[in-house]
């Protein structure tokens, strides 16, 4: 962490950029410190272990991929609630090709399967100007139905397969440890030094036993940022989501750009589905996406239609899920962390003389603290609902901060400018 900081301070990047990285670094260090403090006063040890963070990474990547997919579509102006269906197609085709040929073929075909449903969504919404939500709902029904049909036809006669699940895939994708870093931080984690071992656990979790597909998934975050915000193509795509008629008047092929956006969206959601099969489960099981497409949508909104924000959102959701799976007491300890954050926010708001938010944050901070003190565990259902609750709260509280593409969800027909 400190290395990164000095490097940025000495670099010649513009002041605002350095400032932004500084803030991010401060936030990360503060977050780890918070987790370390909470962990030391409560009866859990799972908040910062490498195991938890490795699981969090595995759980957040598919959500993130779906969210990035949603971002491409919505940046081009097409709302995509068919992400779930596209992801289902990704899981099915990923498992089918993974079982017939191998894991990498599974990934490719999963991407293709998602892209096909993206294409259907594009035909309906772009060419025929059908309501985006309607088409998305239909995609979800259609994808679930056709995958069930395909399962019955393909997997029922096979050993280990059936109407709702596939036989196992041939092999897993290779995993690796980041050399030196992984070993060093694993060693440091075992030392049990306050804060240092906590930070090491997180780093070790994120660098050990990595699947190559995880690396690819993570690489898509900066890649999509670069494509959308640093290339002419990306500018055109975004202009279709902001003001298609203006884009049209400048010669942007709006319909084609929207097709690109929605098909990429399906491909990324399909990749997320294939990830679930190839890296996590090893087989296709009906319903294995379990709403992750919608979760991706939530992460995208949480992240304000930006790649990095989407990643942060999915990491939060994946982390909560990982804690729930590994140790429920750890989730209970998280209540204390939330309480501390809220109280700090209240103090911050009070310093800046914004008293109404300060009072609310203070009250909720105390409530969370009371919840922490008076109970021993958090029901797992509460944890499952948390991502959705958080998204609703963010939407309700931070409406001024969130801004979706201006023409997102609006119907566009060529040459109809008003």
């Amino acid at each position: 962490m400190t290395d990164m900081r000095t490097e940025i301070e000495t670099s010649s990047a513009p002041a605002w950029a350095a400032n932004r990285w500084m803030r991010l670094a401060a936030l990360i260090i503060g977050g780890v410190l918070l987790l370390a403090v909470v962990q030391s006063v409560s009866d859990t040890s799972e908040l910062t272990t490498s195991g938890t963070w490795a699981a969090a990474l595995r759980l957040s990547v598919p959500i993130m991929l779906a969210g990035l997919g949603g971002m491409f579509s919505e940046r081009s102006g097409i709302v995509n609630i068919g992400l779930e269906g596209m992801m289902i197609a990704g899981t099915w085709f990923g498992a089918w090709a993974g079982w017939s040929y191998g894991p990498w073929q599974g990934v490719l075909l999963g991407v293709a399967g998602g892209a096909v449903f993206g294409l259907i969504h594009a035909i309906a919404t772009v060419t025929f100007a059908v309501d985006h939500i309607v088409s998305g709902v239909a995609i979800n029904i259609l994808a679930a139905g056709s995958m069930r049909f395909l399962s019955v036809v393909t997997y029922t006669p096979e050993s280990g397969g059936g109407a709702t699940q596939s036989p196992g895939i041939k092999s897993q994708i290779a995993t690796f440890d980041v050399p030196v870093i992984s070993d060093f931080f694993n060693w440091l984690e075992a030392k049990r030094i306050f804060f240092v071992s906590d930070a090491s656990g997180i780093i070790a979790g994120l660098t050990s036993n990595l699947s190559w597909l995880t690396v690819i998934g993570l690489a898509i975050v900066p890649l999509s940022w670069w494509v959308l915000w640093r290339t002419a193509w990306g500018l055109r795509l975004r202009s279709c989501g902001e003001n298609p008629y203006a884009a049209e008047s400048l010669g942007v092929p709006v319909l084609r750009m929207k097709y690109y956006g929605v098909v990429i969206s399906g491909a990324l959601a399909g990749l997320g589905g294939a990830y679930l099969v190839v890296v996590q489960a090893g087989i296709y099981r009906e319903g294995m996406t379990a709403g992750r497409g919608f979760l991706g949508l939530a992460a995208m909104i949480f992240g304000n239609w930006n790649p990095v924000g989407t990643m942060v959102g999915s990491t939060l959701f994946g982390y909560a899920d990982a804690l729930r799976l590994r140790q429920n007491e750890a989730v209970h300890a998280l209540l204390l962390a939330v309480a501390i954050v809220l109280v700090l926010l209240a103090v911050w708001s009070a310093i800046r003389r914004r008293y109404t938010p300060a009072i609310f944050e203070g009250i909720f901070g105390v409530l969370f603290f009371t919840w922490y003190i008076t109970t021993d565990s958090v029901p797992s259902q509460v944890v499952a609902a948390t991502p959705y609750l958080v998204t609703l709260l963010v939407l309700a509280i931070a409406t001024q901060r969130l801004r979706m593409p201006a023409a997102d969800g609006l119907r566009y027909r060529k040459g109809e400018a008003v």
Partner: protein
Amino acid sequence: MRRILLASLAPISAIVFSLIVASIALMLVGRSPITAFGAMWDFARTSTSVASMINRAVPLYISAVAVAVGFQMGLFNIGVEGQYLLAALFAGWVGGNIVLWAPLHIAVILAVAIIVGMTWSGIAGALKVTRGVHEVISTIMLNFIGFSVIAFLLLNYFKDPNGSSLNLATPPLPPSGQLPNLNWLFGALGFSEPRGIDLHGFAVFAIVVGVFYYLLVWRTRFGYELRASGINPGAARMAGVDPNRMIMNTMLISGGVAGLVGLAAVFGNLQSYTQDFPRNLGFNGIAVALLGRNHPVGMALGALLFGFMDRSALILDLKDTPKEVVTIMQGVVVLAVVIAYEVVNRFIERLEIRSAAEATREAVEGAAA
């Protein structure tokens, strides 16, 4: 006559298209579509199948009405799914734990379902009115929150202590909370009574909901304002219709109707809320609303069509044909019907432009002559 023809053009072509897609799917896996559809048709023509078909159509119809109320003003209640499940849980729990004079008992169950449905959709309405949160996003989130709330309550508070632990359920309805079946209808109409399946009495409420929907939308001031807000929100506001009040009321009515969807199963074959309660009725209701174009009779036909598909598909398994082909048909039909409406509308638009142009030309020529 011409209007009905044009209106039915889109759904009929969508159904034909979905039949074609399903046939292709069947042929690809080496099954004969003609045998399959023939078997479905034969199987569906018994009294038992008709009763089952209507039973399946009832919740779909109510769900479609709930969605259609919102559609009338361009509001998209995608949260029917969460609203009906939550409502059914509470209604099943309350209904199973009280014993009252029968009509009152049933009224209480209905009231609980409506209120719970309204509460859940009201959150989305309030978020939209006060905070500008889009109702599609908030209802999606509320669906998932609802599923968790249901799992939590059922496991910890609402389950029947004497019931099986494999399939958690609320206590079964006592006799005073049960609705009589309508099997006598078949006899009265000269058919044999269904065997093994009852035509559930709750079907009556579907008709009540349909009539209520028709009267509300086309025979009240509220309905007029609702439709006006849907067609031209700006003009409606200028005419003094408060958009926020309309959004809130519409969400509440939609949620209230949605609350009734799950009662079809509570009063029907389950007699309680169970862990494996029927799912997806909310999403399929959207499909039915689109198919029937928000029209009370159109949606009834759409619901019956879906009910027919679900019921008659059961025979396919005996014919070594995957019955899931029906789900593909349902998905295709929704997508095809909205596209077909769009195409038909563009076609009508073009016809109107042409006839208007001709009328103008004739008028000009007439004036010149």
